[in-house]
C-alpha cells in the first residue's frame, strides 16, 4: 500500500528542491516475552508507512497527539533510530540503514533540538564543553579555537559569552533551551529536527525561543522539521504542516490551507478542540467544537482500513476495508481519507451537525496500553 502512494507522491512533485524525502517509513518496536528464551509476541507500530518531503529552507510542522509517532518520526529522519521499513533520503542519498560510522559525517548536516532542556544537557559539563562537543567529536578545525567558536554561538542564540564556564543548573529553562540550540547549530547543519522545543517553557519564554528559531532560520538558511502538539505554535512557525494519527500521516498541506480548510475529519476535530483565547467567542467555539469520543486505539493492534474510523463520524464500510491512500485534493494539499471534509461541513451549521454525529460515535471499549 505504501509503495503505491509513495510513487504517486514522487511523481506529483519535482524532486529538485527536496532536502529530505521519506517514503513508506516504518518503525515497529518488538514486544518480547520470556526471560531466557525471548520471543517476539507483537509489535508497537509506532510509525507505520508514512511519506513526506521536506523542502530546502522551509519549516515542516509535524503535529499529532501523544503516541501518534511524531517523535519516533523525528528520530528516524535524524537516524537516532533505524527504520524497520521504508526509506529516508537526505540530499539524494539513502541514509535509512547507514551504520553509525557511515552516519557520522552526515551528523553535521542533521541536528536535533530536544524537548526537555533539563535532561538533554549533561549536568556535569560546562556550557563550553556542551556546545563545543560537536567540534571535538567531528574533529572540526576552528580558526580561532573552540572557545571562540563556542562564544560566537552563545552570542548568536542570545546568551552571554562570558557564561562559557557555567554549568546548566545555573541557567533558567529558556536559557538552557538556548544552549541546546547553540549545540545544534555548532556544525552549521542544513536540517534541524526540533522535537517539542518550546513545550516545557513558560509562555513569555516560549515566545522568545520561537522568535529566535525564526531569526536563525532566516540568517543561516536552515530547514526545520518542527515537531509539536501545540497547534498554535505550529501555525506560527510552519510553512507546511503534516498531521499524524496513530502512526500514519493523515493530511499534509500548506499552513494556511490546513488551518482554513482542513480536509481530514481528524484535522477538523483537532483544530476545533484548540481553546480559543477569546472569551467573547467561547460560545461559538463550543457550539462548533467536535468532541471525539473515546481514546486513541492501541498501536499494537490498530484498526483495519482507516485508523481513525473508530472515532470518525463519517466512517462507512469502505473505511474498515481499505486503507485510504494519500491523495492530492488541492495544490500541495494531500489527504488520506475516503470521504474528505466538504465545504458545507466547515460552515457553522455543518459543524454543528458534525458535532452531534461525532458525539454519537460509540467509544471504543478496548483497554489502551
Amino acid at each position: 500500500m505504501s509503495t503505491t502512494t509513495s510513487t504517486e507522491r514522487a511523481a506529483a512533485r519535482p524532486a529538485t528542491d527536496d532536502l529530505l524525502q521519506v517514503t513508506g517509513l516504518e518503525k515497529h518496536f518488538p514486544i518480547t516475552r520470556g526471560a531466557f528464551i525471548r520471543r517476539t509476541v507483537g509489535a508497537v507500530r509506532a510509525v507505520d508507512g508514512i511519506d513526506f518531503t521536506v523542502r530546502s529552507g522551509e519549516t515542516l510542522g509535524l503535529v499529532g497527539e501523544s503516541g501518534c509517532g511524531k517523535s519516533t518520526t523525528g528520530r528516524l529522519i535524524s537516524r537516532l533510530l533505524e527504520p524497520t521499513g521504508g526509506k529516508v533520503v537526505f540530499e539524494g542519498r539513502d541514509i535509512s540503514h547507514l551504520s553509525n560510522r557511515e552516519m557520522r559525517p552526515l551528523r553535521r548536516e542533521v541536528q536535533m533540538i530536544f524537548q526537555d532542556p533539563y535532561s538533554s544537557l549533561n549536568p556535569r559539563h560546562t556550557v563550553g564543553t556542551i556546545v563545543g562537543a560537536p567540534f571535538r567529536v567531528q574533529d572540526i578545525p576552528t580558526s580561532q579555537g573552540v572557545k571562540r567558536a563556542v562564544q560566537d554561538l552563545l552570542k548568536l542564540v542570545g546568551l552571554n559569552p562570558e557564561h562559557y564556564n557555567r554549568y546548566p543548573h545555573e541557567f533558567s529553562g529558556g536559557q538552557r533551551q538556548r544552549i541546546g540550540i547553540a549545540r545544534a547549530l555548532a556544525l552549521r547543519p542544513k536540517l534541524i529536527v526540533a522535537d517539542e522545543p518550546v513545550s516545557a517553557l513558560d509562555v513569555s519564554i516560549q515566545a522568545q525561543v520561537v522568535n529566535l528559531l525564526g531569526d536563525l532560520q532566516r540568517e543561516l538558511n536552515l530547514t526545520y522539521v518542527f515537531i509539536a502538539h501545540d497547534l498554535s505554535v505550529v501555525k506560527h512557525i510552519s510553512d507546511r504542516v503534516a498531521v499524524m494519527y496513530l502512526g500514519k500521516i493523515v493530511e499534509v498541506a500548506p499552513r494556511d490551507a490546513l488551518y482554513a480548510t482542513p480536509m481530514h475529519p481528524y484535522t477538523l476535530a483537532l483544530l476545533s478542540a484548540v481553546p480559543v483565547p477569546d472569551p467573547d467567542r467561547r460560545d461559538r467555539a463550543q457550539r462548533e467544537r467536535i468532541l471525539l469520543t473515546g481514546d486513541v486505539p492501541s498501536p499494537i493492534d490498530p484498526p483495519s482500513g482507516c485508523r481513525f474510523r473508530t472515532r470518525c463520524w463519517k466512517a462507512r464500510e469502505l473505511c474498515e476495508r481499505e486503507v485510504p491512500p494519500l491523495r492530492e485534493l488541492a495544490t500541495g494539499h494531500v489527504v488520506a481519507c475516503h470521504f474528505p471534509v466538504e465545504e458545507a461541513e466547515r460552515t457553522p451549521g455543518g459543524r454543528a451537525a458534525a458535532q452531534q454525529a461525532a458525539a454519537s460515535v460509540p467509544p471504543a471499549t478496548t483497554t489502551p496500553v
Partner: protein
Amino acid sequence: MKGAHMSSTNSFTTTDPVPGPRRGPDPTAFLDVRDLRIHFPTDDGLVKAVDGISFTLERGRTLGIVGESGSGKSVTSLGILGLHQREHARVGGEVWLDGEELISASPERVRQLRGQRMAMIFQDPLTAMHPYFTVGAQIVEAYRVHHRVSKAVARKRAVDLLGRVGIPQPAKRVDDYPHQFSGGMRQRAMIAMALVNNPDLLIADEPTTALDVTVQAQILDLIRDLQEEFGSAVLMITHDLGVVAELADDILVMYGGRCVEEGSAQTLFRRPEHPYAWGLLGSMPRVDRENRDRLIPIKGTPPSLINLPSGCAFHPRCPYQGRDGIPCRTEVPSLAQGSDHGVACHIAPAERRRIFAEDIAPAL
C-alpha cells in the same frame, strides 16, 4: 519545637497589617480569601511564594488564576485547602469558606472540610492516584471518610460517578487500577473522586496540562457540565490563557506571588491594563487569527521569589518602567480598586488605556 513554630505563625498573622484599601469583609461571598500570605523559610532566605492575595468566589462561578511557573498560583490553591505543613510554611491572612475561617481553624476541622466541601483536581492523575489500589477503592475511601455508609453503598456511588464523568462500562472499570486507564480516563476518574462528596468548591490545578487537545476539550466540557449540574464554585489554576478564556468568568493574573490584575474574563482579554498581561497576550501565538510576523515576547525571565525585584516585581521586564518619573523601582504598586477591574501598576489609568489602545492592541 512545635510551640515555637506556632507562635511565629501567630505573630506573623497578627503583626502584619492588611495593606491598602483592600476589599472589606464580604459576608455574602462563598469563598473569601483575604490577604493570603504563604512564605517558606529556606536556607537561602525567605521564599515569599504568595504575598498578599485577595479574591472572592461565588457558587456557580469560575475564577481563573493565571501565571507562569513560580508565580504562586499552585501554592495559593494548596493554601486554601490547608495542605501546607505548618512546620515548613508560614501561612497568614484569612480564608473564609461559607462564613468559616480556615487558616485559624484546627487541622482536624480543615480535614473534615477537605474532600467534603472543597476538593481538588490535580494536574497529573498518575501521581495523584495510588498505583496500588483500584480506582474504585480510592473513590470509595474518599466517600467513606466523610459518610457513614457501607462499602456496598459507597461502591455504588463510585460506579455512578464514574459513569457520570463518562467512563464507559463503569461497573467493570471500577475494579481497574490507575495504570489500566488512559490519561484522559484517569483525569475523569480523578474528577469523579473529587466530586464524590458533592463539594461546593472545586479547585482544579492545571487539570488539562498533561492532556492532548482533543482530550482537554472533553475534560473542560465535563467540568463545565458538572459545574452547571452541581452549582459548585470552581477555582481554575492554569498557565494556559486559552483554557481560562474557555472556562473562567473572572480572571486573576499573578506575578511574583502577587496579583497584578483582576477582572472579568471579557475585561482581561478585551482591555487589559497591566504591562505583564499585555506581554502574555503578545507572547501567545493564535490559532484563530492571521499570522503575525513575530511574537512580542516579554524580555528577561520570571523573578526569583527569594529575591524579588524592589518596587513592582515586574519592573525589570517592563518596557514602561520609570516613565514620567513613576516610582516602579521603589514602591510596590497597590491593586487599585476600580469597580470591577483591579490593576497593580503605577502608570496612570488613562495612560494605560491609551497605551493599550494605540500601541498594544493593533499588534496583537
